[in-house]
């Protein structure tokens, strides 16, 4: 790892102010992606600003039909939270199959979405549930937030403070896990909103990162059942292909994972 200067912020304002004073700073939440990348010298921030001790970035709130998860809440705290399990059990499930136990103790929802790895799990949940990303400056709809591989709408120095999810009528998430990295080879999050809208998002599949899957949404809107997806055809155009799977394989995985997610959602 290259030299860096470590700062610990005690509030969002302090974190943003420290960021502004540094030449090339990075916010450090759980560090489960940033630190491995720094160790490989693929990132060399002049300063890292630790968000881990900022109380206003921790915790979960359920208010009416909105579940709000603060940005630096760890995966472990999310998957074991009673409000999450009650309001959107699919999020508790998604979090429980993410990384491994040691990673779940440290990694955070804000870190996951700020990084926007094309195979990360949380972006699929945000997009399918129509979540809103709250920052120190504004609110951003999930549709506008994710902008391609490792790219988001965040401006330099803008800090995610929370994610708000509308509580759906039904939701499910299933993924084919890469056996070594535990990232999603392809993962699909399905949701039926309380107003009857169906939204489906796939991660790990597209060359442009997390994406909606309109053909499956239409099929499930007509008939919310795994069988409804049988006849759907997914194009392999624009899907990822690597040593782990071809684009055609991932196209098929989108269907299969969507069917399993619908089964899980009930």
């Amino acid at each position, binding site marked *: 790892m290259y030299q860096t200067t*470590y700062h610990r912020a005690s509030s969002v304002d302090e974190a943003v102010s420290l960021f502004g004073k540094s030449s090339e700073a990075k916010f450090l939440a759980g560090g489960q992606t940033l630190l491995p990348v720094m160790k490989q010298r693929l990132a060399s921030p002049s300063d890292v600003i630790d968000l881990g001790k900022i109380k206003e970035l921790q915790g979960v709130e359920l208010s009416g039909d909105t579940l709000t998860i603060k940005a630096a809440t760890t995966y*472990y705290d999310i998957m074991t939270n009673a409000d999450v399990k009650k309001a959107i059990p699919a999020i508790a499930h998604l979090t429980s199959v993410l990384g491994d136990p040691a*990673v779940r103790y440290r990694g955070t929802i804000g870190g996951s979405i700020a990084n926007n790895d094309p195979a990360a799990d949380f972006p699929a949940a945000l997009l399918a549930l129509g979540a809103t990303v709250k920052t120190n400056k504004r609110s951003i709809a999930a549709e506008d937030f994710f902008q391609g591989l490792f790219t988001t709408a965040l401006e330099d120095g803008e800090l995610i403070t929370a994610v708000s999810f509308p509580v759906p009528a039904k939701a499910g998430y299933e993924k084919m896990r890469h056996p070594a990295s535990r990232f999603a080879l392809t993962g699909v999050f399905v949701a039926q909103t309380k107003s009857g809208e169906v939204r489906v998002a796939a991660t790990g599949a597209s060359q442009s990162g997390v994406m909606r899957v309109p053909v499956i949404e239409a099929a499930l809107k007509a008939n919310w059942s795994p069988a409804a997806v049988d006849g759907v055809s997914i194009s392999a155009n624009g899907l990822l292909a690597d040593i782990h799977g071809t684009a055609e394989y991932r196209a098929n995985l989108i269907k299969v994972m969507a069917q399993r997610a619908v089964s899980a959602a009930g």
Partner: protein
Amino acid sequence: MSTVKLTVNGKAVAVDVEDRTLLVQLLRDHLNLTGTHVGCDTSQCGACVVHMDGKAVKSCTMLAGQADGSTITTIEGIAKGDELHPMQAAFRDNHGLQCGYCTPGMIMSAIDIVHRHGGQLDEATVRSELEGNICRCTGYHNIVKAVLDAAGRMKVSQAAE
């Protein structure tokens, strides 16, 4: 440079380290606690797992500064004098180590697993919970046996306390 203050295996320590120092480097290079291993250095293998405030974390994937003010327990801190921790004893009795390189991380993760699951452990749960710890001797069979054995022993020893 920063001063990092920690409690490690029951002792308060203050260590001056470069800001880029990882927790595992502080433990091994500054405190000479070399029981905690570095295996992959890419956050995948779990040889470096220690307990921070009771939670099993990868000490190669934390800056020492992030651990400031916390309580750390390493593999050196779990036995009571000459009496092995029940998890250590179970690993020995079940031949849960071959080359031994992954063992410190395995044991620290396994203790955390038992704490979280209590008496609810079965083989499938142990196997899935150990996915962050890699044994390149592939000696998982006896490791899983050891964890299940230790889960029983830890319940008994907790009841006795």
